[in-house]
């Protein structure tokens, strides 16, 4: 086992058994979530809704044949 894994396990033990080296109490962990959640909260472009509707329509068309 590497030292790194050891450290992580110590941290995990300290945090009540939850392995969270990127938790919100680290600057890196917080920025990572801020970066990612910023994209997640963007509006979903219409093209995806259109695409799924087309796929669905194509499917039901096939089933009728």
């Amino acid at each position, binding site marked *: 086992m590497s030292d790194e894994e050891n450290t992580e396990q110590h941290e995990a033990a300290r945090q009540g058994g939850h392995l969270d*080296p990127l938790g919100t109490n*680290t600057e*890196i962990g917080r920025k990572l979530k801020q*970066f990612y959640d910023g*994209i997640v909260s963007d509006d*979903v472009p219409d093209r995806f809704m259109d695409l*799924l509707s087309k*796929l669905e329509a194509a499917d*039901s068309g096939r089933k009728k044949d």
Partner: protein
Amino acid sequence: MSDSLQFKQDLLGAIPSLRAFGVSLTQNSDKADDLVQETLVKAWDKQSSFQPGTNLKAWLFTILRNEFYSQMRKRGREVQDSDGAMTARLAIHPSQHGSLDLEDFRAALEKLPEDQREAIILIGASGFSYEEAAEICNCAVGTIKSRVSRARTRLQDILKVSGEADYGPDAIAAHVMGSGAGV
């Protein structure tokens, strides 16, 4: 609700996270959206191979990731742009407030090799377990752990921040207040 309607709803629900993962991989929102589109089409076609009750999000992330790497192989290394325009545009400027700016963070994230970047995103942002991330990346759990750990160290180096987790939440409060930046 029909299975297919349910599946459609579930796919729709997964789009925001797929886009975020796509941007993390490609660092480009147009390319990311193309990747998401491919993923949705593939997922729809492979619908019957998805086992209801298992983790749809992990299944979709796997498809998107495979698609990304197969496109990358096709295009050579064009997708990787570590010294390119994007990096220049997002060059790291010294922060005026002493707090880490989001653009600085994006630029730092871009400097990571893909394998480390995807690992730290899956674990630190997408909310997957190490086991799930290992499955998505088709590698051992220990490999994911070491990639995350290297990514974290590298980001801390680039951004010159320390791993405050070692000092607990009080240190963060002091840091935030001391920086005078507010968050």
